[in-house]
C-alpha cells in the first residue's frame, strides 16, 4: 500500500494541517489524498518499515550496492539522558531537525484521552523567550518549515530548512522542552482548534469513525483502545493544570531523542546540542505503561450506522510486534496480500471478482506494544459487506491451507527492497525512520531486520496465518450506510448532480 497523505494516517495527527498540505508533494500527488479507497489508518508504519528495511539492506554485508548509510549514523547520549542520532547527507545545504518524545496516547488514561495531542498543539504557544506566535514565523522566515505529529507511541517536532538555521532551531527546541508558557486564554482557544480537528477527522468522516470503533472493540485493557486525538468530551474537559502536569512529566531530556539529518558536521552538531539540550536537567523517569491486552476468546463485532455513500469493512486481529520473531512473516503476509496490483486482494477481489472498490491488509510491525493485523475493504455499489467478508475469509483460508508461491514470496521481498530505495530519496524520511525506531524500539533494529525478512519462508507465512488470522482473535467493524436523500443543493436546478 502506498502512503497517500499525512492527513490520512489516523494514528498520527499533525498539528498544523495546513502545513501538512504544504509538506506534501505538489498538485498531482496532493490530489491523491482524495482518491478513493483510502484506508485512513496505519500507513505510516508500513512506510517506516520500508525505509528500515532499505537501511538494513544497505548496511547488510553483501547487500545491495549503495552508500552504507547505517554506518554513518553517529549515536550519542548526553549526561542528562538525551539520546542523539546524527546522519550526514550533504547533497544539499539543508537539514532536518527532529525532536522525538516517548509519549503518545498509550501514556494516557480514561477521561484524559487526547492530552498528548493537545500538548503537541500547545508546544507552539511560546516560552518566556519566544512569544506565542514567534516559533513558526521564525522558522518560516528563514525558508524553513516546522510541524509536529502525535501517534499512539510518540510525539515528534521537526524543522526542515537551511543548514545555517540549525543552531537557532536547536536552541528553540531545547527552550520549549522545559520552559513552555501557556496562558489560560491560549489554552482555551487551542482546545477549540483541537475540537475542530476532531470534527474534521472523525465526526464527519464515516470510515475514520468506524476505525475508532474497531480499535475500541479490539482493545479493552490496553490504551490502544482510544483514538490519538482523544474522545470529544475528554478534550473538552482537560484542564490547564492537567496539561502542565503532563507536560512536565514527559517532556524531559531523558525521555527524548534528537535527530539531525542533512548537511552537517556531526562533531560540530554534537557540540551545539550539548550547548543547548545539554544544559537541561534530567527529570524523574516517566511512569511505565504496564497494561497488557489479554487473550481474546471469541469474535467481536461492531456496526456503525451513519450517513455514507458506500459500506466499509474492517477485520482486526491481535498480533505481536517487532519483539516477536513472528513479526517478520506477518510483514511478508501483509505484502503478499496487498502490495501492488498483482497482490492477492487487489487482483482477486478488486480486479477479478469486481467485489470491492479497494481491499487491503496492513500490519503494525513497529508499534511499542503489540497491535493489530488488519484486513479491510469497501464493497463496490451492488455488492455487500457479507460478500466481501466471505471473500476476505476465503483469502485467509487459502493462506492457511496452501503455501504462498515461491515467486510470490520473492516478489514481496523484491518490492520491499525497491521501495526502500525510493523512500530513502527523502532526507526528512531518513530522520523520521531513525527517530521513530529509536522511540518505539531501538534504531539498531535495522541490523537485524533484513536478514530476518530474507529468512522468511513460505511455511512461516502459512504458520502465522494459521496462528493469528483466526475467528476467535478477530474484531470485525462494519460501516452500514443510512439511507438518505442525496445532499440537496440550493443553487442548481433539480436533477443537477454533484460530481
Amino acid at each position, binding site marked *: 500500500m502506498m502512503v497517500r497523505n499525512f492527513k490520512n494516517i489516523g494514528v498520527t495527527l499533525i498539528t498544523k494541517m495546513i502545513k501538512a498540505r504544504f509538506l506534501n508533494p505538489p498538485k498531482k500527488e496532493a490530489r491523491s489524498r482524495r482518491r478513493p479507497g483510502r484506508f485512513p489508518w496505519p500507513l505510516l508504519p508500513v512506510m517506516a518499515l520500508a525505509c528500515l528495511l532499505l537501511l538494513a539492506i544497505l548496511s547488510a554485508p553483501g547487500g545491495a550496492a549503495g552508500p552504507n548509510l547505517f554506518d554513518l549514523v553517529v549515536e550519542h547520549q548526553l549526561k542528562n539522558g538525551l539520546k542523539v542520532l546524527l546522519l550526514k547527507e550533504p547533497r544539499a545545504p539543508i537539514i532536518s531537525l527532529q525532536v522525538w518524545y516517548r509519549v503518545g496516547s498509550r501514556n494516557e488514561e480514561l477521561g484524559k484521552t487526547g492530552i498528548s495531542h493537545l500538548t503537541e498543539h500547545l508546544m*507552539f504557544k511560546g516560552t518566556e523567550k519566544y512569544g506565542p506566535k514567534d516559533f513558526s514565523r521564525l522558522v518560516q522566515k*528563514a525558508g524553513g518549515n516546522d510541524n509536529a505529529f502525535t501517534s499512539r507511541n510518540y510525539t515528534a517536532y521537526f524543522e*526542515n530548512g537551511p543548514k545555517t538555521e540549525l543552531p537557532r532551531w536547536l536552541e528553540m527546541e531545547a527552550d520549549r522542552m522545559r520552559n513552555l508558557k501557556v496562558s489560560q486564554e491560549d489554552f482555551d482557544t487551542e482546545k477549540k482548534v483541537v475540537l475542530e480537528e476532531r470534527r474534521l477527522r472523525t465526526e464527519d468522516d464515516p470510515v475514520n469513525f468506524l476505525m475508532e470503533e474497531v480499535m475500541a472493540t479490539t482493545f479493552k485493557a490496553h490504551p490502544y483502545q482510544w483514538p490519538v486525538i482523544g474522545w470529544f468530551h475528554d478534550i473538552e474537559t482537560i484542564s490547564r493544570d492537567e496539561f502542565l502536569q503532563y507536560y512536565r512529566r514527559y517532556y524531559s531530556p531523558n525521555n527524548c531523542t534528537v535527530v539531525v539529518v542533512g548537511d552537517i558536521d556531526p562533531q560540530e552538531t554534537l557540540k551545539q546540542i550539548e550547548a543547548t539540550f545539554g544544559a537541561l536537567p534530567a527529570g524523574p523517569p516517566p511512569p511505565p505503561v504496564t497494561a497488557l491486552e489479554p487473550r481474546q476468546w471469541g469474535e467481536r463485532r461492531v456496526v456503525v450506522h451513519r450517513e455514507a455513500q458506500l459500506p466499509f469493512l474492517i477485520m482486526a486481529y491481535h498480533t505481536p510486534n517487532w519483539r516477536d520473531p513472528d513479526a517478520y512473516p506477518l510483514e511478508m503476509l501483509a505484502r503478499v496480500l496487498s502490495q501492488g496490483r498483482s497482490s492477492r486482494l487487489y487482483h482477486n477481489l478488486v480486479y477479478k471478482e469486481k467485489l470491492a472498490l479497494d481491499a487491503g491488509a496492513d500490519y503494525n510491525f513497529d508499534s511499542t506494544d503489540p497491535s493489530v493485523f488488519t484486513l479491510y475493504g469497501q464493497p463496490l455499489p451492488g455488492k455487500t459487506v457479507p460478500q466481501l467478508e466471505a471473500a476476505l475469509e476465503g483469502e485467509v483460508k487459502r493462506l492457511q491451507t496452501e503455501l504462498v508461491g515461491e515467486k510470490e514470496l520473492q516478489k514481496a521481498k523484491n518490492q520491499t527492497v525497491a521501495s526502500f530505495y525510493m523512500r530513502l530519496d527523502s532526507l526528512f524520511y531518513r530522520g523520521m525512520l531513525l527517530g521513530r525506531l529509536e522511540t518505539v524500539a531501538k534504531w539498531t533494529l535495522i541490523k537485524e531486520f533484513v536478514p530476518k525478512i530474507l529468512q522468511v519462508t513460505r511455511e512461516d507465512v502459512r504458520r502465522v496465518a494459521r496462528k493469528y488470522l483466526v475467528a476467535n482473535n478477530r474484531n470485525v467493524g462494519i460501516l452500514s450506510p443510512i439511507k438518505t436523500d442525496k445532499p440537496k443543493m440550493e443553487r442548481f436546478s433539480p436533477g443537477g448532480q454533484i460530481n
Partner: protein
Amino acid sequence: MDRLIKTFSCWLLIILVWSGAALAAASPRVLGVREKLPNGLVWLFSEQSGLPLVTLKLLVKAGTLQDPKGKEGLANLTASLLLSGTQRRSATQIAQELDFLGARLGAAGGDDFAEVSLTILKKDLAAGLDLFQDILLHPAFAPPEVRRKVAEIKASLKSDEDEPMVVASRAFNKDLFGAFPYGHPIRGTQAGLTAITPKTLKEFHRRYYRPNNAILSVSGDLTLDEARKWVTQIFGSWPAGEIPPPQLPPIPRLQEDRVVVIDKDISQANIILGNLGISRANPDFYALQVMNYILGGGGFASRLMDNIRVNRGLAYSVSSGFSPGLEPGPIAVSLETKNASSAEAVAQVLAEMRRIRQEPVTAAELSDAKSYLIGSFPRKMDSLAKRAWLMAYAEFYGLGLDYPWRYPDLIRNLTPGDIQRVAAKYLHPDKYLLVVVGKKSAMPPPFGVAPRAGGEEKKDVKKQTHP
C-alpha cells in the same frame, strides 16, 4: 477536490527549485539538459547519482482541457487504462511484471496534462522501459477493461462524497467554470463516463498521445550518454501527429456574489469562497504568490490562520490558494468550522480580503514572505522525483530550465504596492462565489434556516463570459 487541493499547494509547487544549484552536476545555472528527438519529443535530463534509481515523467497534453463535452472524464480514463493491457500484455501480466521488479509505474489524468511516470532500480531499467513503451504506445482499451475501470471510477466518485470538502469543491468548480472543462472533476462525471466507448478511447489516444504533444523528464543514476541512448531507443519510433487545437467554451464571469448552501448532516460547515484567478502565464503570478502567502497561504505566518485559528479557535485548517493552469484557475479560501460558527468565519475571511485590498502589507510581512519563498527553494528540489517533476513543469509552462535562478529576482523586487494591486485585482469580497456544505438546521443565518436577504435568491444570476 482535485482542483482546490491543487490551489492550496500551488504557490509552493512553483518554488520547488533552487537546490538544483547544489545538485546539478553539469551546469549550475540550469536544471538539466534539454534535447529534442526528430519526432518532436522534448526531453530533459538531470544526472543524480545518490541512489541507484531512475525516474521518468512523461507529460502529455491530454488533460481535462481535452475532454470533449458530454464525455467528461475521457482524458483521465485514457491515461488510467494504459496500465490495463496492451496488444502484447494483459493487465494482469503488466501488474505481475511491475510488482516483481518492485517498480512504480503509474498513469493518471490531470487538468492540463496526463502523466505517465516510472521509478525503478537502475539494474531493472531495461525491463521497466520496455513496459513503459508498451503501455504508452500500444494500449489495448479492451472492452472488459474499460467497463471495469469505468465502474471503479464511478464508484470512487460516489465514495468521495463522504468527504464534505470534496462535495464543496465539486460544487465550487462546477459553478465557477460552468461548461468549461475545469468545472468537472478530472475523473469526470457519471454521465460523461457512461458515454465513453472503447472506440472513443482509441481515437483520443491516437490523436493526443504523440511525441510532439509531450514532454519527457528523466532524472537519476545515469550519464547523459546513457540517457540519450535509452530515450532514443524507447521513444524514437513514436510517430508524430497533427494535434487538433483545443476548442474551449468561455469561462463564465461572476456578476455579483453567489451563495450555494448544500445541506448535509455533519458537524462542520465546509466552506470555499473565491473567484476566478489567473493562468500560469500571467505575469501577476509572482505578486499573487506573495499576496497569497500573507493572506492565507503561509500557514501560521498568514493572516487568515492567525485570525481564524490562532486568535479565535474557529478552525483547524484555514488557508487561501490559487491554482494557475494553462487556463485561469480559481483563487479561493477554504476552511472547516463547526456549523454554528460558519457565519462568523466567513465574515472574518471577507474582512481579511478587504484589509489586504485596502491597506498595504507591512514591510515585515513582505520581507518574511519573500525570504520564505526564496529560502525554501532548496528543499523543493531535494529528491529525484521532485527534480524530474520540476523540469517537466518548467518546460510545460514555458518557464525555462533556468527558472530557479531567475526566481529570486522575480520575488525580491516586489513592492507593497504590487501586492495591494493584485489583491485588489483578484480578490473580490463584494462579488464572490461561496459554497457551504453543512447542516442547515445547525447553521445561523445566512446559511442556516433563515434565508439571507439577497443570498440564495441570487442563484439565477446570468453568467457572462470573458471577452
